[in-house]
């Protein structure tokens, strides 16, 4: 799947996160800001990378502003951002789970 446009998902409310995804050639760049980055930074990034890998996203710029979201919220927001940034999105629930 290819990111063809910039898209946003999520909010900056507590327990949520804002995900911005944009086209980027040749690399997957993840920029993470979080109130709990020292404790959970690697875990948050692992969840984001895992979601993107399952969706076949290898090239993109992903900017995450986390407000203490649970893993399931992170996954939902990343998937929503991708769905808004690609052409012809079809939900494959086995991949999204």
């Amino acid at each position, binding site marked *: 799947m290819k990111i063809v446009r910039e898209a946003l*998902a*999520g*909010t900056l*409310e*507590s*327990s*949520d*996160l804002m995900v911005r995804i944009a086209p980027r050639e040749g690399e997957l760049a993840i920029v993470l800001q979080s109130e709990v980055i020292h404790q959970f930074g690697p875990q948050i990034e692992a969840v984001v990378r895992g979601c993107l890998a399952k969706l076949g996203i290898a090239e993109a710029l992903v900017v995450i502003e986390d407000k203490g*979201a*649970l893993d*399931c*919220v992170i*996954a*939902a*927001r990343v*998937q*929503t951002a991708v*769905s*808004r940034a690609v052409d012809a999105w079809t*939900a494959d*629930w086995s991949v*999204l*789970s």
Partner: protein
Amino acid sequence: MKLRRSMLFLPGSNAAMLSTAFVYKPDSIMFDLEDAVSLREKDSARLLVFHALRMPAYRDSGIETVVRINPLSTPFGMKDLEAVVRAGVEVVRLPKTDTADDVHALEAEVERIERECGREVGSTRLMAAIESASGVVNAVAIATASKRLIGIALAGFDYVMDMQTERGDGTELFYARCAVLHAARFAKIDAFDVVFSDVNDDDGFLKEVDLIRRLGFNGKSLINPRQIDLLHNAFAPTQEEVDYSRRVVAAAEQGEKQGLGVVSLNGKMIDAPVIEHARVVLRRAEASGVRQ
């Protein structure tokens, strides 16, 4: 005894509420993908609810999970259904149910999805929300439309709009409440009352709860966690009721030992319906405690 006194509404787009609502211990949590979610966030709410349903905090909590999907006639309804059945939701709530055919159409799609994803056929239960004069008139047909139905719910706001009136002291809902309740009892499923929207009016809330409890409703839709304990307490039997019920059951058991068909307690006849009611009170007390 499965209690369905409290059904807490949560906007499906609210990450914070989805992440924490289980701590309030309602009997059921209803993730809303319909009216509480704006058109531009239908997609994100669907994914949030899909993942929330899979959280161990919900799966292992003993709290029944319900999702109010968008009507199947909208561009969102079928997508909602695909997501939540696959995520393992216990009950799908269909809004704006006007006829039994609405339930039949939903049931057919649920069964198709269950087969496609390998979920046990029949394991997804349904609830129909009645929100119009048509729905009230067809309540018996709706309530008996599917073996998957666990209950029917009256939704007050749309109903009073359809009736060209407005919410007031409850008079405007009297016929609809009675019709929905009778349909549910005829079909042997549960009946749920409307939300009480003024979360700061505890007295008004408790007055309405007392009314619907006495009418015979199983429970009520709630929009604020503060209302849960108030509701549960109001639905719990009093110590006096529990004590009397114990005496009734004891007298009945004694009579049975003596081979008596009908016994009396303090000069009052105790027959089968009285004994059954006493047993229901004791089961309810066991499940929900005694009213404080």
